[in-house]
């Protein structure tokens, strides 16, 4: 009996929120948590730009995960902790290998705004994949964050670099999992390589094998930097 009363008291805020909805509710995604992810693939960096919109009927539940001390304020520690919580629920694989996400940016609206069902939480994560080999690649994203209440969107952003070309996108029905196929074509720098060969040969001629090695190292550094761009 005591447990039942406790449960009812626990549910009171949610019941009150639902009861306060107008007869013909105008809010968007009442009982859904919209998680919309744009995946930007660029040479040297992959970014996940995520917009999270909790509907009014589940906003308190989401807020409970963010405002952990329930003081009505989302502190920077609390927002960072929630970003970490979401990060743990995002599985990103590049060519079948898990990659580590780093939080790049975050923006939380006031709790009052989140409670209305209109507030949008914005989080951005980045991945540094290292030097990509030329050719086809696959990036998969699986979002396991709060699946019971969530709906998802996953889309590949159009790359700003011509070195990356999106060749296909597939998702499961509810878009909690998506796969992006892309080609990486490092920019060709024929002039740099020509200069490198000439200087390498020149180094050997002038200073013997050691000179050629030094010139070769310097120019390979230059070439790798330019291809990363």
């Amino acid at each position, binding site marked *: 009996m005591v447990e039942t009363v406790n449960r009812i008291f626990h549910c009171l805020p949610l019941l009150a929120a639902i009861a306060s909805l*107008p007869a013909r509710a*105008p809010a968007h995604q009442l009982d859904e948590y919209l998680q*919309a992810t744009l995946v930007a693939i660029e040479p040297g960096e992959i970014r996940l730009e995520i917009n999270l919109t909790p509907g009014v009927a589940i906003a308190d539940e989401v807020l409970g995960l963010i405002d952990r001390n329930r003081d009505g304020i989302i502190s920077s520690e609390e927002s960072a902790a929630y970003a970490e919580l979401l990060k743990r629920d995002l599985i990103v694989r590049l060519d079948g290998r898990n990659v580590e996400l780093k939080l790049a940016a975050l923006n939380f609206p006031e709790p009052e705004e989140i409670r209305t069902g209109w507030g949008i939480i914005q989080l951005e994560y980045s991945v540094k994949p290292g030097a990509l080999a030329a050719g086809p690649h696959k990036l998969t994203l699986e979002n396991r964050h709060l699946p019971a209440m969530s709906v998802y969107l996953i*889309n590949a*952003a*159009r790359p700003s670099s011509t070195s990356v070309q999106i060749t296909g996108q597939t998702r499961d029905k*509810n*878009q909690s999992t998506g796969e992006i196929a892309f080609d990486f074509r490092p920019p060709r720098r024929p002039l740099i390589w020509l200069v490198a060969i000439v200087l390498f040969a020149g180094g050997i001629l002038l200073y013997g094998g050691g000179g050629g090695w030094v010139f070769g190292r310097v120019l390979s550094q230059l070439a790798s930097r330019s291809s990363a761009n």
Partner: protein
Amino acid sequence: MIKKIILASTLALFCGGFGFDNFARGNPTAEIVAAAKRFLATLDDAQRAKVVYDFKDDAQRKRWSNLPTRFVKRGGLRMGDLTKPQREAAMAAVAAALSAQGYEKVTQIVEADEVLKDDDHGGPRPGGPGGQAMFGRDEYYISFLGQPSATEPWMIQFGGHHLGINITFVGDRATLAPSHTGAQPAIYEIEGKTVRPLGRETDKALALLNSLDKAQRQQAILGFEMHDLVLGPGRDGQTIEPEGIKGSALTEKQREMLLDLASEWTGIMNDDVARIKMDDMKKHIDETWFAWSGPAEKGKAYFRIQGPTVFIEYAPQRLGGDVTKHIHTIYRDPENDYGAKWWKQ
């Protein structure tokens, strides 16, 4: 009954009172500028200071949303704070920039919000930010970036809940991108007449889908659910990879249908601007994609049109009820949102 008469007369005032003879005109830009200046002349100094922003004010440029003004504050002057002559002059300035059809769409969206207000008893709510009302025709805002000019860049913004009209002018060139239209309720009645602010786009999209053969449908229909706009308000500067069926895989008739569907957004602008945009779209029709997600039923599915210079999305919103009654759309130009390529160095 009285409520309906007020609604009907307001709509009639909107549609009839602001001189659609503007659209049979010689120099549209000059007339739009003149209409904007006539509105500014009705204001006092304090109001003028509030309604005109610096053209370089990017924060104000991006201050538009599908959300009610109670949650996303708009800049400029609130319709409900203007006198009747000021309000009429404001709407005349908006009307001058749009086609008759575009202005009708805008007013029907505003009137839908008035219907929502009545259904929602959307008067002032205790405890809400500022205690202000959430819905209704008073809750729309007008603002300018830069002074209206036939030569210098300037912008007019008109919007509120489910509406964000952003028009940038640079000399005799103009663009509507990016702008948001939406409606809730997307179907309502005034004096027994059914009004569907986004009805034509809804019907034309389904007709296009139905014109596709089996193989074309397999390309056009996305195999996953779409719950909202991908590049809605707040997603400025972003573009996504196109999906669906490419214009080059459509028949000539289907391409015409696709262009006609897109004209529901491009045609919001006055006829001169709309014609230029449509010519541009025709040039890129082979590289323009059409995608669909959801059932082949009127108003129940998401669709997208995406080409080099156009991006349109239509997304019915789930309310746990009838998705056909709540719609969001977005119109963008991936190359020229806010006319930036004309004025940004």
